[in-house]
């Protein structure tokens, strides 16, 4: 009870996160009134992408480790569901447990090996591990290889997911829990030291702390969160294939984070929303201007991303923060 109270208390420290979570929670009411059930589906995709990006951001934004292989953990989470079902395990809670355990274990191994390197080497090693896992699943013919495997929406004991809204709220609760967890972590003893390592690793070492231990711990936690997102993703998509862990997905996660603002807890969620809206509407917009190019919406998105990075120095969240500051200043002066 105490913990819950503190969690809700701490939510006040990030109004943006609170508003976003509330927005996702109330969104189905809007879609049912406006009769746009398709948008529930979009919202679920955004929440899942946002959840994975939140997980990655623990190492990327708060730990300063540029991991270029986190899609692998989404994939492992998703395959945990598919493979469990293949062997007749239908309990969704067990699927999630497996996803968390496998991702944590594999995250521990990858983190242990990769975190001895820095900079470009770390990026390349994490990418290499992710590619290994990708081709491992491509080669697993039993589980569909390249073509992947079908997944039934799992049953979560009394709660089954025949009604899409139940899946929606399962994902929402998971997103809520992950957000709160991360908010608590980044404000915790562990979290401030992790951010200290990002700022200046040699000073943290000079305080008698082994930076590697903190980095590995963060890496494992972040892998597990991506695994959770992956397990829910399999339920949402009702299908898993190696495609989910393609390297471009890892890049997509990083883009989402950078777009939203990597030093903000709510950054990945904002990034996920904007990224999906752009992915949805930029092609249509482009179709009006230059129909032949409408598939290549990245042509416009690329420069937009660069502009955001160059001019905001902290993603979209930095813009919101500045706006907020200006408004409060104006209120104070009048």
């Amino acid at each position, binding site marked *: 009870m105490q*913990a819950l109270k*503190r969690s809700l208390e*701490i939510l006040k420290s990030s109004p943006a996160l609170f508003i976003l979570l509330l927005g996702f929670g109330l969104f189905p009411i809007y879609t049912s009134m406006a009769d746009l059930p398709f948008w529930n589906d979009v919202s679920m995709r955004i929440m899942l992408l946002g959840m994975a990006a939140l997980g990655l951001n623990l190492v990327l934004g708060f730990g300063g480790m540029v991991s270029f292989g986190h899609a692998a953990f989404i994939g492992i989470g998703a395959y945990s569901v598919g493979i469990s079902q293949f062997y007749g395990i239908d309990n969704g809670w067990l699927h999630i447990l497996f996803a968390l355990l496998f991702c944590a274990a594999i995250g521990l191994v990858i983190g242990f090996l990769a975190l001895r390197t820095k900079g470009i080497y770390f990026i390349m090693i994490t990418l290499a591990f992710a590619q290994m896992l990708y081709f491992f699943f491509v080669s697993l013919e039993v589980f569909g290889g390249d073509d992947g495997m079908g997944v039934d929406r799992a049953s979560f004991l009394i709660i089954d997911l025949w009604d899409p809204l139940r899946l929606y709220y399962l994902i929402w609760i998971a997103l809520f829990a992950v957000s709160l967890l991360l908010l*608590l*972590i980044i*404000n*915790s*003893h*562990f*979290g*401030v*030291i992790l*951010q*200290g390592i990002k*700022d*200046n690793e*040699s*000073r*943290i*070492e*000079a*305080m*008698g*702390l*082994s*930076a590697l231990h*903190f980095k590995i*711990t963060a890496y494992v936690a972040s892998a597990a969160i991506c695994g959770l997102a992956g397990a829910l993703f399999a339920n949402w998509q009702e299908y898993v294939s190696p495609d989910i862990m393609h390297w471009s997905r890892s890049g997509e996660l990083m883009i989402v984070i950078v777009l939203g603002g990597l030093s903000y807890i709510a950054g990945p969620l904002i990034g996920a929303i904007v990224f999906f809206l752009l992915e949805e509407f930029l092609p249509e917009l482009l179709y009006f201007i230059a129909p032949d190019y409408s598939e290549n919406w990245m042509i416009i998105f690329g420069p937009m991303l660069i502009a955001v990075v160059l001019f905001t120095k902290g993603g979209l969240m930095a813009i919101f923060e500045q706006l907020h500051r200006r408004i409060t200043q104006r209120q104070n002066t009048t």
Partner: protein
Amino acid sequence: MTKVSLELKDISKSYGALRASHKLCLSVNKGEIHALIGPNGAGKTTLIKQIYGSEQPDSGQILLNGELINNTSPSLRVRKGIGRSFQISNVLLGFTVLQNALIAELARKGKVFRFFAPAFSDPSLLSGARNILEKVGLLHQSEKLAAEISHGERRLLELALAIATNPQLLLLDEPLAGAGAEESRHITSIIENLKSQHATLLIEHDMDAVFKLADRITVLVEGKTIASGTPDEISNNSAVRNAYLGDGD
């Protein structure tokens, strides 16, 4: 009852053909300030790095309170009682002065793998952090970002972080570097006031400060000890005068 805190036995280290440390022997006792002086490039910082553990000697032994620590990592050496300030300020620039001290206090207490306990709002950590800043007189800048304070104040913060873990052996690499005259006096008096609490190895180019603070002085030139003794002995040593103090009589 003097207690030897640090003892170096025949430390040698080369960078290729360059001898940075040549059979160096040196000890620092508790409550004592041992100054290490010498011209630029003499190998002073290199020696500190070997004591701290970020560089390995090619040969020789490093003993901390009698224990051989040659093969331990820097962070473990800090936990065993070494505190270090860097020649170039090495603080957490993106954090406030108070947060810098608070993280050091957190590290000292060792309760670091706590994932839910809030750090920056913890009253006992905050008071510990304020204590640290009070020792160096930096409390008035608590809320400023470490990147925004003056150079001299950053030297103070650097010193504060070095002593925050209550080290038995304090390694100070040019604590006065770049500080103004007033600040230099301030930092010198802090080092003097704290000297009884640990063994201090002090590298410094400011000779006024060195002769004011040091109980013993070792002079290093091109990786070799050319003299070692009390301040009086050193100031009267002709080899030192010729090689370094250079007031050519």
